[in-house]
């Protein structure tokens, strides 16, 4: 039995026993290479579930849908290691109770979905440890370094061009499990810290602020980057932040359900070579 069949049958079982009220997974999309998120509530519907190498979206975002978990009932969700780290952060930031989750963990290797052992968040500690040990993506690092090797002025021009494309649709924010604020900073208008207009200045401010808010929280699931309808390489800026907190504070986002936020904690001997 392949992973898809195995997970479908298990999901159906959980639904029919009432162990979970909902399974959030993937189903067929509007084209052959697309998978779309699906909400399965009955055992019969479980047949719609799919799991293969095209299932890339981080579904943890949906767990924060208003009221979804407030009845205390359990929900099953399909998650890759990045999504599992998201759950750790969301639990650490008190946005959900991980005890309510049944996690169908999987990883994609060579284009194939492979099962991950365990169903509870605590079962995946070794997976997260392994992810940390494997380090940040060398691919992203390579791309980021290419940018870092050019002059600041050239880099500014690069981002100016990229951010000028932004239309402030906020797909990056909406798809991100970390962007759960009830009122985004950009919607604060007293005072209006971030210019809401999508001129390049406003776009610069928006993208910088979002990257800052994701520092130490982004798990590099790539959701924002994939969602961006105007193809801004958001992955790079988020990667740069992840690298900064790792290098400066030895901090890797989403390690556990009780990890403290990197920017709400400190060590007296934190590096400060840049401070005069």
């Amino acid at each position, binding site marked *: 039995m392949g992973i898809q069949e195995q997970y479908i049958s298990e999901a159906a079982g959980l639904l029919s026993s009432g162990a979970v009220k909902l399974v959030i997974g993937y189903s067929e999309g509007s084209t052959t290479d697309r998978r779309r998120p699906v909400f399965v509530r009955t055992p019969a519907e479980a047949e719609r579930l799919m799991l293969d190498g095209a299932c890339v979206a981080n579904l943890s975002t949906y767990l924060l849908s208003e009221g979804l978990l407030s009845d205390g009932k359990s929900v099953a969700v399909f998650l890759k290691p990045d999504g599992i780290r998201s759950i750790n952060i969301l639990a650490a930031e008190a946005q959900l109770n991980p005890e309510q989750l049944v996690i169908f963990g999987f990883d994609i290797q060579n284009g194939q979905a492979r099962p991950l052992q365990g169903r509870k968040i605590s079962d995946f500690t070794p997976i997260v440890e392994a992810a940390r040990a494997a380090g940040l993506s060398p691919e992203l690092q390579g791309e980021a370094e290419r940018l870092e090797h050019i002059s600041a002025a050239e880099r*500014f021009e690069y981002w100016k061009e990229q951010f000028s494309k932004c239309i402030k649709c906020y797909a990056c924010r909406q798809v991100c499990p970390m962007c759960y604020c009830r009122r985004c900073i950009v919607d604060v208008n007293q005072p209006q810290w971030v210019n809401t207009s999508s001129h390049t200045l406003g776009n610069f401010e928006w993208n910088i602020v979002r990257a800052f808010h994701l520092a*130490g929280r982004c798990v590099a699931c790539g959701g924002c980057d994939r969602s961006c309808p105007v193809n801004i390489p958001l992955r790079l800026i988020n990667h740069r932040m992840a690298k900064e907190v790792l290098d400066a504070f030895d901090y890797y986002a989403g390690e556990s359900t009780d990890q403290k936020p990197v920017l709400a904690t*400190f060590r007296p001997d934190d590096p400060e070579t*840049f401070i005069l």
Partner: protein
Amino acid sequence: MSEPFEPKIVAFVCTYCTYAGADLAGTSRMKYASNVRMVRLPCTGRISPMFILKALQKGADGVLVSGCHPGDCHFAQGNYHARRRWTVFRALLAFTGIPEQRIRFSWISAAEGAKFADLINTLTEDIRKLGPFDQYHELQKVIETQATY
């Protein structure tokens, strides 16, 4: 000969150390460049990165953020939190091409009037050498311009 460029610099400082240090520079009648405008906050912990972006939007060619030395924070820990934020924010700005030389951070205690005066002079001179931050200010100018089509 054109006038030498006079940079606009905005400083965000805590009231207990750097602001007091600036006061000390004053009571000691030290002289320094007049390019800096100070915004007084209770603690560096109160200084949000947004302040820096707004100062740039308002035409600042440089920004100074300054507070108590580690261990000396009136609020015990505010500056440690600030330091982490600065580390991250500074890396972010640098990555987006906002030169590190324009956004400076320092610790200046209430007793360091001379350090304050020196820093303002050095900073002003450094920014003067860099020239106006046209690249960023251009973004604001574009906003104020009529549409081209």
